[in-house]
């Protein structure tokens, strides 16, 4: 009996609902109001990319032995095209033995070879100025050139892990001597991209 009743109810529903559902027009612009999940990753034109990185470096001066340092760098990069940007970097080294401490501020173009992709590699060249041993009495100012390669791995649309190999070089005048200063560093860090 209950089976028959439910069969009847089903039949009734089938007939009753058909005209109802065909009357109610489907909302035609439903898709326009859906916001798809963010899935766009990669380097694009216009992007502003801000990152903080830490790593290690060796600071070397010709005729002196090289010393190891912790290297810290902050970069702001504005992309003018998907593959060309301008980056401004601030670099500071923290030497282990308190010798040859470098601070640099540099500006220069960057090139990205794999825009619009989750993994991007790039090159940059820049220049600016630097100080050696700023916090000591023998502080020296100098011009600084930099160059390096980057590897960006996008975690989300907004967040990327950055790896950077950087070589900075300049000529410092110390006690009337011109000394070539070179500092290769390897850095990694997190960046916000928008």
């Amino acid at each position, binding site marked *: 009996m209950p089976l028959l009743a439910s069969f009847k109810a089903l039949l009734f529903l089938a007939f009753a609902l058909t005209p109802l559902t065909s009357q109610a027009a489907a909302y035609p612009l439903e898709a326009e109001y859906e916001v798809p999940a963010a899935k*766009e990753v990669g380097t694009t034109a*216009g992007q502003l990319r801000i990152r903080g990185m830490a790593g290690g470096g060796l600071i070397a001066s010709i005729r002196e032995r090289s010393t190891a340092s912790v290297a810290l760098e902050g970069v702001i990069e504005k992309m003018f095209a998907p593959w060309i940007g301008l980056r401004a970097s601030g670099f500071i080294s923290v030497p282990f033995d308190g010798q040859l401490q470098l601070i640099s501020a540099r500006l220069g173009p960057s090139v990205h070879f794999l825009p619009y992709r989750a993994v991007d590699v790039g090159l940059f060249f820049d220049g600016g100025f630097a100080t050696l041993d700023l916090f000591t009495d023998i502080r020296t100012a100098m011009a600084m050139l930099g160059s390096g390669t980057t590897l960006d791995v996008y975690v989300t649309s907004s967040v990327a892990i950055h790896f950077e190999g950087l070589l900075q070089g300049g000529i410092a005048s110390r006690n009337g001597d011109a000394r070539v200063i070179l500092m290769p560093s390897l850095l990694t860090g997190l960046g916000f991209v928008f």
Partner: protein
Amino acid sequence: MKKRILIIGAGPSGLAAAANILEMAANEVEVTIVHMGHHVGGKAASYVNAAGEHIEHGWHMVLGFYTRMRGLLARAGISFDRAFSSMRGQSHVYETWSKRLHTIDASGSKVAFAARFSQYDGLPFGDRANYSRVMADAFLFATSGANLLEHDDICFDAWAQERGLREHVTRYAIFRVLREGYFNFPERISAYHALQTLRLMSDTQKAEAFVCRGEWSETVWKPVAAYVERLGAKIIPYTMVTDFIYEGRRITGLRVSRPDPEGHHHGASSWPKGGIPREANSDHALSTFDSVISTIPVGVLCTLNQTDQAWWQSPFFARIKNLRSATTLAMRIITKEPVRQLMGPVFGMRAPLGIATDMTGHLTEKHGPGSVIDFCGQEAGFESWSDDAIVDFTLENYARTLGMKPIARADLSWLEFHRNASNHEQLLLCEPGVNVFRPGAKTPFHNLFFAGDWTRNDVDVVCMEGAIASADSASRAALAYLSQI
């Protein structure tokens, strides 16, 4: 003898053209305005129906950058402060992802318009940063003096994506605001139109929005019409131009007829779709003019000189046929009981009536204890929906959007709905690529000039200020022509 200018249309551009001409040359020129309706103001008009009730053609706002319009009103003796009420820099956007209304408050300091967007809390953090950065770039670009016209053939969504806006961010309601505001949703809006809007609204003052405290025609257009009549213009209603008559490169006459007043005047909410019925035996020709300024909307213009192949195959007029218009929708409701009140328009609600404004506090005339709410939008996508279906959907949608208990028709003391389907009431779509087809004031006929929000002008966005700006160029061109003959 005075030279004679005939102006077709008594909307913002027609009235402004008449005012300009008579202010500059009342002693040398005679101005006659013919228009097809019985009420002045064109698409920005209100009118009185058979029951004596005031009906608005559609909700209109005036923005801070409407300096030409404010100038015209001032010259006509209308006090802007008395006629208009500020929405105090407030607007609201409903985001479907958050299911919330988000308020944009641009009142107070004279901050850049772009700052409105960066303070907007309606997007998740990463998207918000991306959106704000792109809008800031767009704003800087728009105000940089760059030639924005070069960006007309691309839609604003694509333009922004080329500058790094994430594709999905274009789907947030905040990014749709301009498309909706110009009734271009679900169509796309050209980057030129969007950037030009940012340029025009470059600070809080220029972006401040005002609404009329009364009925538009009563408060604005009738006093403006009275002003042009005081200056010497003759205004002739119920005169519908059906054809231009020409010889060589001169317009020598206009074929006109009297539209059947069944329609607007006698209670129906809009002119019928398609051709306007004409009174029998009312066809005649007008030829008492030296020069003509036509402010006929593009949709209607394209129906004139129907059988004249040479006219429509000429390069100038063939281009105009590429312009499309939107069927706008408008609705006013007055609730019996007050409902949740918000200062400023709400954008982002579901189409077709996706913009709503609570007018209760703005109107001088009181409408009982309830709330007066104006809705507007456009029909695209909903052509097959009946008026009733659109009304019911909108009532339900509005209540849901604002988090109120449902509003039923029984809760209303007034409901008016307009489907501006007739081509006289449609608004130009500013979709990508159309700008090259918009003519300026001059035409191939030496004595015919075009004005109207759809023609190219110094403002160049489709609105009342654009219409009035177009009247500046058309009236100057017409006077220059008359000074030569």
